[in-house]
């Protein structure tokens, strides 16, 4: 690893730290960074302690973890299908996680306990995971896998629309729509404990496929003659992406664009190497989501601006600019 890459990793890590502190410091109640930091590690039932421990900390932790999940999953999917248009939702997991969560709202289960909605999302995601694993386990080609992912996404999307269509009352419909927009507001430590381990496991699984992804740059046949067990790697990527993205979607809703744009931005900085893109995209995703979540809090004067709306709104024009700027590089 050369010095350029080390500098990039250190720079991104610092940015994650700054974003994390910024996320802890911003909110409707004006308590500063130091107060929040000292409150996190102290006991008591002071207002500052409660805000720090139960509102700000879970939000910042989820922002970092979900951003990292989306960034690294996007990088892994793009590396695996060898196409910069791939994104974490490509294999159907975001849509099935969203469906599971929406169903808990539809059936009125989400109001029972704080963890029923994310749990519903996790169950939805696991169904999506199982379908994809069965398809991948049969030795399907990459294209079959993507098409199957599209089918699963479409079906889950249609069922989500059906839930909206048949919503028992307008409040449930609005709640579903708002949830689908994606947000980190009002998340608790329960959300962190529920989704965090799955995101960490998924990220770890993906971090292990760096070298194989480099070999896959030359196609699957050549990669397997370079000593890569392509079938096992495919399974590892699918499980890693679905487990982590499923958990992320289950607690935060659909947050688009991070998984697509972050690997795209960082790719030229790592010499286009898929292996180096994995850790850098994890950090980059965390940075982007932490700062976006700070921005929605600063910009919300009326109803809260949803995080998923903000990332897509700011991301798309920037992405278009990037694509046009780099168009001569595409072949």
């Amino acid at each position, binding site marked *: 690893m050369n010095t350029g890459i080390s500098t990039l990793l250190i720079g991104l890590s610092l940015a994650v730290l700054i974003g994390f502190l910024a996320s802890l410091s911003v909110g409707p109640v004006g308590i500063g960074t130091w107060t929040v930091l000292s409150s996190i590690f102290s006991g008591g039932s002071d207002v500052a302690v409660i805000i720090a421990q139960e509102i700000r900390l879970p939000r910042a932790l989820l922002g970092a973890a979900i951003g990292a999940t989306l960034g690294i999953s996007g990088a892994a999917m793009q590396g695996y299908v060898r*196409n910069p248009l791939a994104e974490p939702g490509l294999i159907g997991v975001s849509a099935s996680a969203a469906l599971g969560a929406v169903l808990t709202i539809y059936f009125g289960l989400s109001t029972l306990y704080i963890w029923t909605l994310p749990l519903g999302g996790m169950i939805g995601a696991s169904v999506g995971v199982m379908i994809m694993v069965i398809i991948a386990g049969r030795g399907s080609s990459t294209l079959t896998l993507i098409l199957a992912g599209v089918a699963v996404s479409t079906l889950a999307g249609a069922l989500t629309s059906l839930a909206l269509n048949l919503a028992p009352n307008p409040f449930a419909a609005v709640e579903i729509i708002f949830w689908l927009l994606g947000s980190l507001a009002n998340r608790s430590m329960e959300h962190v404990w529920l989704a965090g381990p799955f995101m960490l496991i998924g990220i770890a699984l993906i971090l292990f496929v760096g070298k194989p992804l*480099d070999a896959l740059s030359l*196609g699957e*046949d050549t990669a397997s003659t*370079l*000593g890569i067990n392509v079938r096992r790697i495919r399974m590892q990527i699918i499980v890693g992406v679905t487990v982590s993205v499923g958990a992320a979607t289950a607690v935060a809703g659909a947050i688009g664009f991070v998984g697509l744009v972050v690997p795209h931005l960082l790719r030229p900085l790592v010499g286009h190497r898929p292996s180096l893109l994995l850790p850098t995209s994890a950090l980059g995703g965390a940075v982007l989501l932490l700062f976006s979540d700070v921005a929605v809090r600063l910009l919300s004067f009326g109803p809260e601006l949803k995080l998923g709306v903000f990332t897509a709104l700011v991301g798309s024009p920037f992405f278009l600019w990037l694509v046009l700027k780099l168009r001569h590089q595409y072949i």
Partner: protein
Amino acid sequence: MSILSAQQLNVSISGNRIVSDASFSVSSGEIVALIGPNGAGKTTLLKAMMGLIKVESGNIYYDSMEIRFNQQYQFARYIAYLEQNSRSYWALSVESIVMLGRLPHLGRWKRPSAEDHQSVRNAMEACDVMQFADRVVTTLSGGEQARVMLARTLATNPHFLLADEPVAGLDPAHQLDVMDKLRDLADSGAGIVVVMHDLTLASRYCDRMTLLFEGRVTADGSSENVLSERHLATAYGIQAVYHDSDHGKFVIPVRRLKE
């Protein structure tokens, strides 16, 4: 002394028999040219020998070890494969592409050692791509990219190399370079299978030839025997003129035979 052999292979793709009852082998130190018209099954035979395609029946052996479908990755240190029209999907540097050839030795975690870097340098020099080391591979011409991909296989220092049309698209000078390089590799003990269409180049550089026609091994042996008038007429439907020179035998296709 090692041997890589296929015994009575039958391979079908989507119900079409592509390779029929083909037996084929290559030993350490020799270059075998695998020739035959388009669609004869050369690439399929090569892929089947690499365990990349499921065979209906027949066996593939690396010495006494059997190579099964999807198990090729276990032989990556010993058998290198150069895909036809091999290319990189990402804009990687030439050096990092060639370094991928060391992957079978490095595994997932080991960092490249001085020895690995030396192998990469040797391979790049051998294929005349040293001057492109830091260039992005996708910005090179087709012929240059082909040499980079060959360098990648040489960096592995394999015992066997199966190369699918490594000289297609190269200028005459680099065709000779590549064949010289394969000759060096064979002289240093590796066994090489090379798919090619240039019959003269094949007969000059290869120790043995195997002619594949409609999935069957139609002829096998010295270039003299394999490139006979009768074989060329059956397999390619051509007539050729032969010429002996100081540089070996020339085979020049001159006329297409009509049915």
